[in-house]
């Protein structure tokens, strides 16, 4: 894909964008393009640079290096109030001295749109966020979820090229958060607006986003569809950050005839379907706990690895086992609570997994 083609379909494009604060490099040569109409998530732990990246897009931070394009136009030096982006703030930042209507109408009034147009736009957007009839409410008269929707409406009403959201659901309790996730996704589809969503919650990113960029130490560790990032994590960091996993240091022993590599982890040998390895190499693999089948030792499959259950945790629908397979090799295994056989601590078991489950990591 050529650079020009990328620019044509991207609403926002970052090229080698860097932002440093003194000695601290918050964003380190980040390049990415966000496509028209997609729900894009920037995911990472606190301090990874995701919020700074978002604030660069909104115009509150100026890149120390690199360029940022909005609809093909370089906007490095364009202040926030002249950008076609709108931000839903983490603390919402609703104006406490205004009611719902005045908050939502603020952006349109600033742009001196006719009052009749404003009234129409505000009515439509309040319907979109399911707040029709709340126009004259004050901010302190609204519940957390309602305030959330006002903040989104206030941004959406301006029909931004991109809607930027900075962990907007962070302050809500779990149940409301899950509900708002579904609503946000629905709003995004209905309005057709491009969303860029910053979060540290991998569940949120996986549930809502079309594409996810996982950030670590100011860099993008991996970018792709949620399913891809989950099933084929590129690095130890990504594998760990998205979901639960077993990271196993391995040595490449041999290459099988079928192209699979034979790996050795503390004497336990198994295959992995990854071509790009040479014998003798030291690597890490990620093995998701739910990909591992657990069976009683007497019912062991031929490719099974014997082990002893050292810990059992009941998680409701799932049960989590820790199994010691070899000296220094302990694997976490997760099974459906009601569909599988149950094991207790010190039970002898046999573990097995398909070669495709062992994902070889870059680092």
């Amino acid at each position, binding site marked *: 894909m050529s650079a020009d083609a990328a620019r044509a379909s991207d609403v926002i494009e970052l090229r080698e964008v860097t932002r440093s604060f003194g000695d601290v490099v918050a964003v380190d040569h980040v390049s990415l393009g966000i496509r028209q109409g997609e729900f894009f998530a920037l995911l990472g732990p606190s301090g990874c640079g995701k919020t700074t990246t978002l604030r660069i897009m909104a115009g509150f931070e100026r890149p120390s290096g690199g360029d940022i394009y909005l609809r093909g136009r370089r906007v490095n030096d364009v202040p926030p109030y002249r950008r076609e982006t*709108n931000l839903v703030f983490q603390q919402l930042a609703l104006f406490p001295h205004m009611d719902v209507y005045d908050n939502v109408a603020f952006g349109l009034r600033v742009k001196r749109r006719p009052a009749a147009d404003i009234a129409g736009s505000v009515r439509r957007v309040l319907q979109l966020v399911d707040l029709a009839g709340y126009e004259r409410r004050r901010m302190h008269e609204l519940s957390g979820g309602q305030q959330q929707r006002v903040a989104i409406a206030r941004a959406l009403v301006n029909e931004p090229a991109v809607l930027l959201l900075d962990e907007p659901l962070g302050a809500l309790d779990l149940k409301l958060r899950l509900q708002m996730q579904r609503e946000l996704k629905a709003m995004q589809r209905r309005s057709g607006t491009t969303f860029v969503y910053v979060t540290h919650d991998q569940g949120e990113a996986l549930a809502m986003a079309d594409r996810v960029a996982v950030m670590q130490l100011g860099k993008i560790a991996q970018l792709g569809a949620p399913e891809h990032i989950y099933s084929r994590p590129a690095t130890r960091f990504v594998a760990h950050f998205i979901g639960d996993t077993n990271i196993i240091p391995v040595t490449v022993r041999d290459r099988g005839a079928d192209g699979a590599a034979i790996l050795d982890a503390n004497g336990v040998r198994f295959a992995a379907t990854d071509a790009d390895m040479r014998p003798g190499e030291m690597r890490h693999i990620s093995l998701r706990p739910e990909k591992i089948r657990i069976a009683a030792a007497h019912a062991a499959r031929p490719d099974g690895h014997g082990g002893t259950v050292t810990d059992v945790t009941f998680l409701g629908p799932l049960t989590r086992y820790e199994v010691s397979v070899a000296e220094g090799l302990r694997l976490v295994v997760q099974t459906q609570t009601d569909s599988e056989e149950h094991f207790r601590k010190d039970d002898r078991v046999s573990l097995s997994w398909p070669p495709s489950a062992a994902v070889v990591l870059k680092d």
Partner: protein
Amino acid sequence: MLLLFSYSAFTFRGGQLTEEVSFLAWQKFFTDPFYFGVVTKTLQLALEVTAAALLIGYPTAYALTKVRSAKFLVAAYIIIFSPLLVSLVVRVYGWLLLLSDNGVINQALLAIGVIAAPIRLIYNETGVVIALVHILLPFMVFPILSVLLQFDHALREAASDLGANRLQTFLRVVLPMSLPGVVAGCQIVFTLAISAFVTPELLGGGKVQVLSRAIWFNVVDVNWPLAAVEAIVLLALALAALALFDLAARSLRAMRPTGSPRPRRDSPGGFIDAFLRIVLFAVLAFVLSPLVFVVINSFNGSAFNSFPPQGFSMQWYQFVLGYAQFREGMVNSLIIASASTLVAVAAGMLAALALTRGGIRGRGILNAFFLSPLVMPRVAIGIAVFILLIRLRVLGTTGSLVLVHAMLSLPFALVLLTASLVNVNRTLEEASMDLGAGPLRTFWSVTLPQIRAGLVVAAVFAFITSFDETEASIFLVRPSNTTLPIQMFLYLEQYQNPTLAALSTLLIAATIILVVVALRFVRGAELARLVARR
């Protein structure tokens, strides 16, 4: 302009004026034992006032932390603050009424037979100390209060868990931790006390020779070089005091509490709490009494400020309204106060924005510079500006008074507006910018509504500061634009009848109306927060 004024106040008089007379004034000041006596007296008076204010102010602040009713708390705040809202001359006049030989206290004591002849309470140091403590008490109470309010209740529980009783807890934990507030309070009170002028002049009866009075007399005698020397000495004393207290404060800085404080008011009961309540009510009465008796006396039928009042009369009100000097003074004061409020609030707003928003280097120095008029002796400012204005040939113009008053109210405006701006959530401003509002529009529709409370209070403070300003203005006015407090001061030096009581009552009423109107814009909690921050 303001910067120029305060800057000139720092530097002008040292150099040129004394050079012309070849240090004769300096020589005279440092060799004549009379002036040594004046300096000692000034310091002694300030020490007495500071000690007395601390003795009264600490229990008051402590008692205020025990108040549970929010309404009573706001009322108590306002009462303790009220001396600041009422003209200096009115307050002094109130003490004259209370303390004079035929005043309220002596007459009451005579009536119940405790004393046979009136005791001398005014025209000596006692009266001056009492009146100064009254005026400066709020400056002692609020720094201590703001420290006590941040006190972590968990520390008190920890002390009691470790076996300390209430008194031990107070002496070993609460008191040491509140020392920064004590130092801050003493610093302000001491600095203001050494430069007090109106009070020693009117209540001292010529017997309390302090530096500010010496300056005044030298200016009247046209011995300006000597006045300038005295002003510099006074300024030096003020700065030395500030520095000493700062040093003390710095040595206490290690005692910052760890973790986030958990404030909690104590459970009621115990005779200590009863005692504290009595102290609080006594202090409130002490603060209010001069004003109350001013009001009572304004209806006095007699012409001699006698107590109890002899008959009811409205004649003094008629006299006040007919007295041309007061009318002119009132008009002048209103014009000057309004104009200087506008200037001070506008300049204060710009300075506060620069200090809180602009990433300026040397913020601390700038801040100290803007605040300096607050602690600089008013009399010294007066004489410095007086000499500057003569040089510029604009002495006595209304414009010059407006600027001087604006300079004096700027610190109040700056402190209050900075405190408000710091409280404004920056994300709100970012949200506004994000929605397309430029910096000006954002300031107007988002920032300004958030700091309305601070703005109103700042304007009220600036207005009252200007309207009541006496000690610097007295050097700067001409008969044509004399302000009301100066007219009152001059009147009080000559006459002693309830005319001033009537005028004062009108001013108190006007102040109450102003404050009530202002409070409609400001919720009590906001006010308390602004106050505690100072």
